[in-house]
């Protein structure tokens, strides 16, 4: 089947079987390799992306359910000014080590900051419960997210309804 969706703010189309994984489509069709396959079972969070502005595991999303929706990967986040600055601060605060979990963690963090601009320790812990860091760098990651000043998702990346709310309209 052919599906049409918004990928990192741009309209795209992809052809595949309805049950193909979004993760494979991102990596092999669009060559966006930020989302990683860790466990392939929805436990590790390395393949986290935003679907219609919410964190999901791209290894568990079949292509059929992407039609007409918006997908944001770490590459899309990094391509915006706000997102790039966020990733730089995150790295400077030691929030990343080997990097395997980082794309998923920064997207979980971006979604959290969208909902809670000044997250508590507990809110950060809940938001990251599904992202496993093999280097056990959790404390630095916690700190990096707790000190983020504001929402980091650029409104151009968000689905229209959310972007409107962003603009205060």
């Amino acid at each position: 089947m052919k599906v049409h969706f918004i990928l990192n703010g741009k309209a795209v189309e992809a052809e595949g079987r309805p049950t193909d994984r979004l993760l494979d489509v991102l990596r092999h069709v669009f060559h966006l390799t930020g989302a990683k396959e860790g466990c392939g079972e929805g436990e590790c969070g390395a393949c986290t992306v935003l679907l219609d502005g919410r964190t999901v595991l791209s290894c568990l999303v079949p292509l059929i359910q992407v039609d007409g929706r918006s997908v944001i990967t770490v590459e899309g986040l990094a391509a915006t000014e706000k997102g790039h600055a966020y990733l730089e601060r995150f790295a400077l605060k030691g929030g990343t080590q080997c990097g395997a979990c980082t794309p998923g963690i920064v997207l979980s963090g971006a979604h959290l900051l969208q909902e809670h601009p000044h997250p508590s320790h507990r809110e950060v812990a809940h938001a990251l419960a599904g992202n496993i860091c093999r280097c056990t760098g959790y404390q630095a990651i916690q700190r990096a997210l707790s000190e983020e000043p504001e929402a980091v998702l650029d409104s151009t990346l968000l689905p229209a309804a959310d972007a409107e709310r962003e603009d205060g309209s």
Partner: protein
Amino acid sequence: MNPASGLPRTVDEALLRLQERPDTVALAGCTDWMVRDRLARADAPPVIDLLAIEELHGIEEIATPPSEAKRPAGADADPTTPPPLLRIGATTTFGEIRVDRRVVEGYPILAEVASQIGSRQIQNRATLGGNLVNASPAGDSLPVLLALAAEVEIASPDGRRRIPYDAFHLGYRETALGPGELLTAVLLPPPPPHQAFRKVGTRAAVAISKVMVAMAAHSRQGRWSSMRIAAGSVAPVPMRLRAAEKVCEGAPIDVETATEAAEAAWGEVEPIDDVRSTARYRRWALSRVVRRLLLEM
């Protein structure tokens, strides 16, 4: 019908598709299906996407038809207007349930379980209907819906019907859903004033449960009434702890009742040893959790 893909956009279109091609898989949040079944199917089964069907999604209050209005003993609301039911569409996600004001205020144990299922990423996809139809003995929301005396709405080519959720699970991963039928919604009766839930897992988050207990009750003059206690992960299906409920019915709200109910719960389950826990631990934990929740509730 979606003109581009030819995929159903209404429940009736979906039912028709299931009739035409009985091997069609109806997909919802896919958090189990993509792991468990996708790789087992080399044949790429025909699928339909229930998430694209608007009428299956969302939470709303609906009026109870007067003939069906049942009032719990002791409630003293105006008898002329039956209280509304909360209707939760089958494809409503746990992420949506977790933050819904009506759920948080009226059915806090449902909001609590929704926030403890998997991770945020899972909650953003997994649906209430999917949890029920998947029918895992460890499905977290199942005992909660039993405690809340939920009903489920089922659509079939012959029409819609409502059955008590008590009658939905028939055996291990076997439900009352017939071939070609769809679960369309869960209906919750007015909130009971006392509710409690506890999940026992390996970690505080993202753990498959070893034991779950959910309970809901009314009270009158210091005594329990309409007590419903349900447990998960201790039998092939989520189950009511009827012996423990019986101990509580009309009994004083005190530590003796809680202890006696915990002993009754111990005696009425036959859990198994598996990769997540042992029968011995499960029975012990279940009994302790029943006692503790009765004291906290």
